[in-house]
């Protein structure tokens, strides 16, 4: 048996009291491929960030536990240190320069240079580049990966797969590379390219390089990994050898955690037979990283419809596309009337509202008061909080009405603030989220899209927000479409849940179905669930 390369012991990490990793243990042998799976937010990336010495870890108070790499205890303070010890990481987003060739990208800032006399005077940066030796280095790395990649092609002209190969080659071109971390490398690849990458991974492992492989495609994990770790809520919940693992076993472990849904009152009306409020047909949305390809859905009157799925599969694109924030196509009918796509004001005027997942970017006027934040949309769309003069020629802001409505929502949603004039920027994340919700509710919508309503907010605020959603659904009869990455959250609030994979609806189940069924849907197994 090969020697142990990496041993992480009792790793724990919390972000300001919010525990994201507890007591994680991990052992990796030389030449072994380790698969790491788990839902979004299970702690995979945090674990890898700790290993790779990313600055964000140290800035948020470091971590607990010990790491032993290549027989020595280590604690990296920067990714440079990790790189120097022989750990390479390929991140989800590309870190490439489009106007450089593959070679230039692979050896970026590690270019071979030719000695020049001037450098004696002004430092080594005035040495000229030795292009031949750079190319040799790059081709060597590409050969290690054994893929077809033109070393002289501009990265900007490459198909996505080749960009990924360039990225991996860059890590391989470093001297003494012992461990390679791949964060969802196949997410952007075509099937053919993914296969090529998988066989390269096997070849790398055979040559003695260990690989940590993070992916949502469970079949790939089974294909290449020697050992599989399933993470959930910051813990390793299951450790499997590839020999005795199955897709459904992994999926079940991933979502796990049965929640008590008995507290949820059953709806008096059966939502499935209620009239259709919104009909979505063949929707596509061009939202980077959340592309929607072809979604058809029916939303029934009075229900809370959940939309779930793993990150990057397109669930977030649906509300963003319908509400006109990203270019979209297809047909959306609301109460029998077709909604103009790519036209936010038409959507709002028809009685739709949207709480965006991007609070700072879309949801708030950070530098304006709560009054403005809450009243603005309703003022512009429904002509509320305005006083008319000169026969409607002058529409004057009615500050009293604005203060009054703001105060009402501050009370109703328990927004913690010093006054209604406070700037939105100075509120905590949870309270900002409530302000976003108040803004949408002030529109008094018939149908409300809520996207990731609990992302990045503390537990107390979470339950308040979810309760408020249910309350408005029950009391006002507002139809709600809630998009969330947290399946359990959806199951506790929604009536039905649609799962989106690869930009399409892969299945819709009632919320009381067992969670492993949803888990399977999420990883793309449509048939086995039934």
């Amino acid at each position, binding site marked *: 048996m090969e020697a142990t390369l990496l041993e992480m012991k009792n790793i724990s990490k919390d972000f300001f009291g919010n525990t994201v990793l507890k007591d994680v243990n991990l052992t990796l042998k030389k030449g072994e491929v380790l698969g790491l799976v788990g839902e979004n937010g299970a702690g995979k990336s945090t674990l890898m960030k700790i290993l790779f010495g990313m600055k964000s870890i140290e800035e948020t108070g470091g971590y607990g536990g010990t790491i032993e790499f290549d027989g020595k205890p280590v604690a990296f303070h920067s990714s440079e240190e990790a790189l120097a010890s022989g750990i390479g990481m390929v991140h989800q987003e590309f870190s490439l320069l489009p106007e450089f060739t593959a070679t230039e990208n692979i050896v970026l800032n590690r270019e071979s240079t030719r000695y020049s006399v001037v450098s004696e005077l002004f430092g080594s940066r005035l040495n000229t580049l030795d292009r031949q030796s750079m190319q040799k280095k790059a081709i060597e790395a590409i050969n290690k990966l054994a893929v077809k990649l033109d070393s002289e092609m501009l990265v900007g002209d490459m198909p996505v797969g080749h960009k990924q190969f360039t990225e991996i080659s860059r890590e391989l071109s470093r001297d003494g590379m012992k461990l390679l971390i791949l964060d969802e490398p196949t997410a952007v690849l075509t099937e053919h390219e993914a296969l090529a990458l998988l066989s390269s991974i096997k070849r790398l492992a055979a040559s003695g390089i260990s690989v940590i492989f993070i992916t949502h495609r469970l079949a790939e994990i089974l294909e290449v990994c020697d050992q599989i770790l399933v993470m959930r809520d910051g813990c390793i919940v299951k450790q499997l050898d590839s020999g005795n693992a199955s897709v459904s076993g992994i999926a079940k472990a991933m979502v796990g955690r049965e929640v008590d849904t008995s507290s949820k009152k059953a709806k008096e009306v059966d939502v499935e037979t209620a009239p259709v409020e919104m009909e979505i047909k063949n929707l596509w949305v061009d939202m980077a990283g959340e592309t929607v390809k072809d979604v058809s859905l029916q939303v029934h009157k009075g229900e809370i419809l959940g939309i779930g799925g793993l990150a990057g599969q397109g669930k977030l694109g649906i509300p963003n596309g319908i509400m006109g924030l990203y270019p979209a196509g297809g047909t959306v009918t609301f109460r029998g009337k077709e909604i103009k796509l790519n036209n936010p004001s038409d959507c709002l005027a028809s009685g739709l509202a949207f709480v965006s997942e991007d609070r700072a970017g879309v*949801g708030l006027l950070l*530098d304006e008061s709560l009054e403005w934040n809450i009243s603005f*949309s309703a003022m*512009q769309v429904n002509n509320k909080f305005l006083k008319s003069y000169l026969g409607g020629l002058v529409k004057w*802001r009615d500050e009293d009405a604005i203060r009054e409505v703001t105060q009402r929502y501050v009370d109703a949603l328990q927004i913690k603030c010093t006054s209604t004039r406070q700037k939105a920027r100075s509120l905590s994340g949870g309270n900002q989220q409530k302000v976003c919700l108040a803004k949408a509710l002030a529109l008094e919508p018939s149908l409300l899209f809520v996207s990731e309503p609990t992302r990045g907010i503390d537990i107390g605020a979470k339950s308040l927000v979810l309760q408020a959603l249910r309350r408005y659904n029950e009391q006002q009869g507002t139809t709600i479409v809630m998009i969330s990455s947290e399946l359990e959250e959806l199951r506790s609030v929604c009536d039905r849940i649609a799962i989106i994979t690869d930009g399409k609806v892969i299945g819709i189940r009632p919320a009381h179905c067992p969670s492993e069924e949803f888990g399977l849907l999420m990883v793309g197994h449509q048939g086995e669930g039934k």
Partner: protein
Amino acid sequence: MNKMQRFIKEFGWPRLIIAAFLLSLFVIAPFAGVNIGTSLTDTIMRFSMNGVMVLAMVPMIHSGCGLNFGLPLGIIAGLLGGTLAMQFGFTGKLSFLMAIVLCTPFALLFGWAYGKLLNRVKGGEMMIATYVGFASVSFMCMMWLLLPYSNPQMVWGYGGSGLRTTISTEGYYYHVLSDFLNIKIGHLSIPTGSLLFFALLAFLMWAFLHTKKGTAMTAVGSNPIYARASGIKIDSIRTLSVIMSTWLGAVGILVYEQAFGFIQLYNGPFYMALPAVSAILIGGASVNKASITNVIVGTFLFQGIVTMTPSVMNSIIHTDMSEVIRIIVSNGMILYALTRKTEETR
């Protein structure tokens, strides 16, 4: 103490230094033998001359188009209105009114085109605005020569064609506002008419910002994506703001000319944007936030320095360094606003 620090932080060191500098000038002035009354009259006069042009910065800052370095475009519309009113033979008070009426279509047209252009170059507005201003001024240099003006007070004496570089407004709208209800107390003379006119425009601006459209404009500047998600048509709001800025620039130069007594053509409008830009910044505005108070305070501080430095400096060190100080203060202020970390480009 903490409160003090926060006040300084919000107000900004440069503004504090400038205000202190102006205050010290006023304190030193009597000892240097400079008459406070005349200086104050001068300051108020210049304030009333320049106020409207500084006000012209407000709409574009509010809608997120940044500092209007393209003010010369509005000035050109004003010059066209001013010269046409004289060409058509309107005199006295009527000529001023007609100048405003005649400059309006040009301001609307220029502003509309300029706004459309700025909508296509979001993020790079300020640099392009600067050069739109320059290009239009230099284009009009040719036009002033070629356009068939014929009023003998305006065209070159010899040749009989092409406008003069400076045209006197004597007999037309010379001092129509400044002399209206003018108050004289000893050395102090207050151009009430000009001040009232500025106050009227400032009030209208303030009122506009309190309407539905005005609220939308502020929101577009504060967070364009938020505004779009609330159903606002960002581009048309931005265009509206540019048109307003341009029109105010046009009226601003007319107010300036009636008080100054001369129309300055050709290269005159070239660098007129910079004093207005720095004045509003000195008043406490930033690249994307501005209020009417900023306009008033800024114009007063800026014009105060411009009037006080030459007289006080001259009598103390017998050297007129005012030009240098003006350049350093005004551009230093713009530089400060551009490099503040909190105001990075969105």
